[in-house]
């Protein structure tokens, strides 16, 4: 009896605990109103000129000219809204942000900046000279020198980066190539999260200063015959992490401190997966995964590079590449380790540590430097990398390695591939968490980053804990 009493008391206590000690009330879960500012913008007239307020959820907006978010104004784009550019000759329109632009897509309802009439040609090995991804059918989302915020979450940015007519911003020339996402104010907050950047003529993301969190995105077909997924200039600080980059023309991210702005370029590049980058550079080879040059500082860790033309490149001495200077990085303030390379050819095996550059092999790198570098190896020295061809297969869920496409460069989109790691992958647990991400943007549902994902010991953008890239 005493036992029974105890048992029933215990059961009651458990129930009370589970029901929140308030079992008499209903449990109610309702949807919250979508974040909104000002007036709803009508879908009836094409967007053009100054616009503020809210682009409504699931609505389609057509762009009929350059769109300006004036200083002090805010434009919110609700989940599922689509912004359609016309894509015709002489219709390279842009969003120019002096104030605040918030594109708040969700996993279920992403926002689109695209050209609806453009048809993706995503067969492997398709001719890039005939690919609409590289035509530049609209301009970009451009933060002016007085921009406050550009927050892009779960947003598709496709077919942008076209040649401008009259430039709508002060920092790009008339007739220049634009960039699908760019900002020139070092004080602006720029967040690109869980988004997709598809195509562009040159760099899809160009940072002329700003405070950045570029996280958990997928970059495809970036740059026609040159271009990095993110090209960072002076005045820029932040993180570039958990991004999947496939078939970038030159590098994934590149950091430099040129441009004359303060503060010094300082970026952390971690847990990115880069596949088949560096093959569309028409001018001389300038890199194919990650590049740190001209006074840039920061670090790179836990990056997984598969069949990229060059491994991470640290510029350690001044050299010249087709009229472009390569000037020494701020090597005294640059840290890196635990980067993972897989290569299918001797030519790129010989460039895991790029010849002529200053990248120092780290014992934590994969493949282990001592397994293929000669004794007494000095950074920049030529070596025979044939021993590591086809070694350390990271075992993606769906991306056959050795690569089965005709050429390594034929892969420029994700399509049906899946770059998550199989449970037996040797890339699991090879990383480091010995550093802290930059916290230069606020964590906020609307005005900042949803989450600044901490580093993982699993290499690449898809760690086993599921906290990485959600695509």
């Amino acid at each position, binding site marked *: 009896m005493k036992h029974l009493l105890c048992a029933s008391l215990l059961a009651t206590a458990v129930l009370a605990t589970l029901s929140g000690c308030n079992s008499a009330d209903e449990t109610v879960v309702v949807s919250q109103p979508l974040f909104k500012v000002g007036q709803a913008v009508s879908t009836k007239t094409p967007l053009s000129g100054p616009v503020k307020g809210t682009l409504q959820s699931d609505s389609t907006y057509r762009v009929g000219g350059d769109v300006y978010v004036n200083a002090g104004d805010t434009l919110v784009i609700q989940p599922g809204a689509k912004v359609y550019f016309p894509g015709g000759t002489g219709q390279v329109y842009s969003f120019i942000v002096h104030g605040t632009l918030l594109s708040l897509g969700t996993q279920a309802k992403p926002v689109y900046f695209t050209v609806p009439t453009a048809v993706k040609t995503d067969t492997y090995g398709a001719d890039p*000279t005939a690919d609409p991804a590289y035509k530049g059918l609209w301009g970009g989302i451009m933060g002016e020198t007085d921009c406050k915020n550009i927050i892009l979450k779960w947003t598709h940015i496709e077919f942008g980066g076209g040649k401008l007519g009259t430039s709508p911003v002060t920092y790009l*020339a008339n007739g220049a190539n634009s960039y699908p996402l760019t900002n020139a*104010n070092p004080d602006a907050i720029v967040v690109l999260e869980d988004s997709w950047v598809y195509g562009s003529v040159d760099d899809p993301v160009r940072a002329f*200063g700003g405070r950045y969190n570029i996280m958990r995105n997928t970059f495809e077909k970036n740059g026609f015959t040159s271009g990095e997924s993110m090209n960072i200039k002076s005045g820029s600080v932040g993180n570039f992490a958990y991004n999947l980059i496939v078939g970038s023309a030159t590098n994934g991210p590149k950091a430099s401190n040129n441009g*004359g702005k*303060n503060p*010094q370029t300082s970026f952390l590049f971690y847990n990115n997966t880069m596949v088949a980058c560096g*093959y569309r550079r028409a001018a001389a080879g300038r890199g194919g995964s990650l590049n740190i040059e001209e006074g840039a500082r920061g670090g790179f860790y836990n990056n997984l590079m598969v069949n990229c033309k060059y491994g991470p490149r640290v510029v350690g001495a001044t050299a*010249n590449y087709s009229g472009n*200077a390569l000037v020494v990085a701020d090597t005294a303030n640059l840290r890196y380790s635990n980067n993972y390379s897989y290569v299918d050819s001797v030519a790129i095996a010989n460039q895991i540590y790029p010849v002529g550059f200053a990248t120092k092999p780290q014992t934590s790198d994969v493949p282990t430097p001592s397994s293929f570098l000669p004794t007494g190896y000095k950074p920049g020295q030529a070596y025979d990398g044939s021993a590591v061809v086809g070694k350390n297969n990271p075992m993606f869920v769906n991306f056959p390695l050795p690569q089965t496409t005709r050429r390594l460069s034929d892969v420029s989109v994700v399509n049906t591939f899946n770059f998550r790691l199989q449970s037996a992958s040797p890339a699991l647990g090879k990383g480091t968490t010995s550093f802290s991400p930059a916290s230069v943007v606020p964590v906020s549902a609307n005005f900042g980053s949803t989450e600044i994902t901490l580093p993982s010991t699993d290499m690449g953008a898809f760690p086993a804990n599921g906290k990485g890239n959600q695509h």
Partner: protein
Amino acid sequence: MKLLLYAFLLLAAATAQAATLRGTVTDGKTGEPLIGATLQLMKNGTATRYGGVVGLDGQYHINDVPAGSYVLRAQYVSYQTVEKAVVVGAGLMTTDFALPEASRDLAEVVVSGSDREGDRSVRKAEQKADNVLNIIGAKAIQLLPDITVGNVLQRISGVSVVRNATGDGQFAVIRGMDKRYNYTLVNGIKIPSPDNKNRYVPMDIFPADLLERLEVVKALTPSMEGDAIGGAMNMIMKSAPNHLTVSATASGGYSQLFSSQPFSGFSTAGTQFKSPSELHGNQYAAQPSDFSVKPLQYRTVSFPVNGLFSLSVGNRLLNRRLGFMLGGSYQHTYRGSNSLFFRLNGQPGPDPVANTPIFEMVEKRTYSNEQGRLGLNLKLDYVFNERHKLNLYGLFMQLDDKQHRNIYGNQLTQYGDVSITDRSVFRRQNVANVTLQGDHKLTDRLTMNWSAVQSLAISQTPDWVDQSLTYRTAPDAEGKPVASAIYIDPVTHYWTHNQDRDLTGYLNLTYALSPSLELATGGLYRAKNRSNFFNDYTLATVLPGGDRQVFAGIDKAIFSFRPESYAYADSTNGNNYTAQERIAAGYVQAKVTLPNQLQLLGGLRAEQTQQAYDSQIPVTATGKSGTISYLDLLPSLHLKYPLSSRANLRLSYFRGISRPGYFELVPAMFPGDYFSEQGNYALKHTVADNIDLRYELFAKNNDQLLIGGFAKNIKNPIEYGFNQFTNNTYVYVPLNFGTAVNYGAELVFAKYINQWGVSGNYTYTHSRITTSKRVYGRDASGNIVNSIENQTRPLQGQSDHIANLSLIYKSVAHGFDAQLSWVYTGRRINIVSPYKDLDYWQRGTSQVDLSAEKRFGGHFSVFGKFQNLLNNPVIVEVMKPNNLGNLPEQTRPDRILVQKDAFGQTYILGLRYRH
């Protein structure tokens, strides 16, 4: 009795050895020696073989004259011939002549002096001038080794030149004041510039042999346009002579440079002067077939011979009422240079110290320029009567410059990419001017002078093409460099043209209140329209499939527009703009001569400026178009005190302005990798107060001594600096920087002893300006930061010391002239760097030239001009410690050589005919 005496003398002479005749020939009115006057001994009405010429010392000598009775005839152009009977005995005999000026109809209206081109009248004009100026006459120019006005300018006191890529003077720096602070006149009329952005005129357009005189005016009077602070260059073209004059030259030449490097030129036959968008409209999608590869097909000219021709004909007709002078000059020259160029990165390094220069590559630049320089000059004057005269001037100048620049980019490190860059630029520049001018003596005291002027300056670069090839050197397993295949990079074609059309009317009234007081008033109105056109097309060389293209000859290259949007013209390029300018000016001026001979000339000039522009910046930005207007009141006072009939003391004050360049106001943004450049509509014009003091001595025989000093206080000088654009963004813009000072001293001298002469000048200049510059370095915690600091330095182009020295030999008797000339330009800032302490300094340079002329057969002469005898290079340096000792030409530990240009010697031999 007299006859007996003669007979006796004759007898005595016959038995004597021989005699020497000597003496002077002078202007009957002024007593000036007439150098070059000829003397001829006549016997029984026919010329003997004895004669002489007045030398530089003003004397003639006729040696070994047999005793006898002669007539000695003295002659000089535009003077009456004078004959004197002489009976020659033994020993030395002195006979002096004073020649009256030739009497002629309307003499005082037609010409104010005789022989306007000679040294004598030039010196006289300098002495008589109301203000401080220096003149070089056609006779002196003829003997110079220079064939363009740009090069002649460097011979003038206080003037140094900025050279073009082939080493020829292009712009003048006057007393340390850069080209923007000076203006150019033709026959006293300001001419527009074919430059696409600025108002200064490239002086290498003008052939030197059309000039009667070149004046450099260093102090402005109220009647002169007020926008010069350094000075005004006035090219006075040859004007109608008093009798039929024909002169012609033909010469050939060679540049030594092309004995060691080939002349590599290209053909411009069939060049399309209009871009595809001009031919077919802005909506036209250009085809690769619209673009010619001909400019990139280089051909070697195995023995490039220069040809130079000039012809001028002048006379007075219709009872001497109509005078004309038609001059033409054509120079076809092959020029070039080779240059070693250390290319600096656009941003210095922060280590080990801030602003440590970083070098990208060593470039070997080779220039081959084929130039056609055509000048036509027509001067007509019609004299209705003593009171009324009309002049019509016409001028047409054309400089065609076909430049091939080849750059071999040999990089500083052993491995990496090597690029070979070729650029073909065909630039045609024209300056044309028509001036109708009237001189009217309305009453005995009141004269009126008016001019109606239309000028046009055009520059065109049809189909400028840039092309580069790249290959990569990588180490093999043993570390040996291995070169890759050569790839062709994208090719860019540019079309640019700009024009400046200028309509101006001038009116001047002069009223002589008394012989010692003259009042003048007048003004001008100018309407100027400028337009600029810029188009470029970049042709991709990427192959279908995305592969790079291996270079197999330019004619086999495959071009395409990728992305396709590149096939459309970039008609919005920021270089497209239009500008207008309206200037209205008026002045009052008085000239008083006090009883003590002190001459005062002074007055006030008012200039109202109205400028307007329209640019390509968007309507959403500030300053797409704009108008700017301002009024300047420009007082001046010029005192001239004749210490003697040969010496003056001058004291001048004037206020001058300098207007910003047309494009400097246009806020078009030109983003660069390291900083963006932009125009600035808030730019103020420069105003300067100038003082001159000069002592002048014009001795006999063209000897000369000028000693003077000057000082300038320059308000709002225009230089480039960093301007804060927003909180964290700076742009590099033309800005006004407070007040700059510039002072100095000048010395000019000429001394002739018999056939020998030495002339020269020396100018000392000191200027200082403080501008904002960027510093790229580390802060205390090791972060790299950009900051702005001020730096004080001399004005761009100002040399502390510039000098000329010439040794002249003129033997009138042998008909032989020769001149050895040395020009020195002291070290100066060539390029002002946006970064502190990284200005480009040109080392002090010397040039030595030789020229000679020998007359024969009365009307002919042969001449030679030999330039740059020592082949002295132009060297440019950055004054920072040098750790590039292992690289070529880096010989100094305390400075870094960034450019070394060599131009080689040039030779010209020619024949001159003059009647």
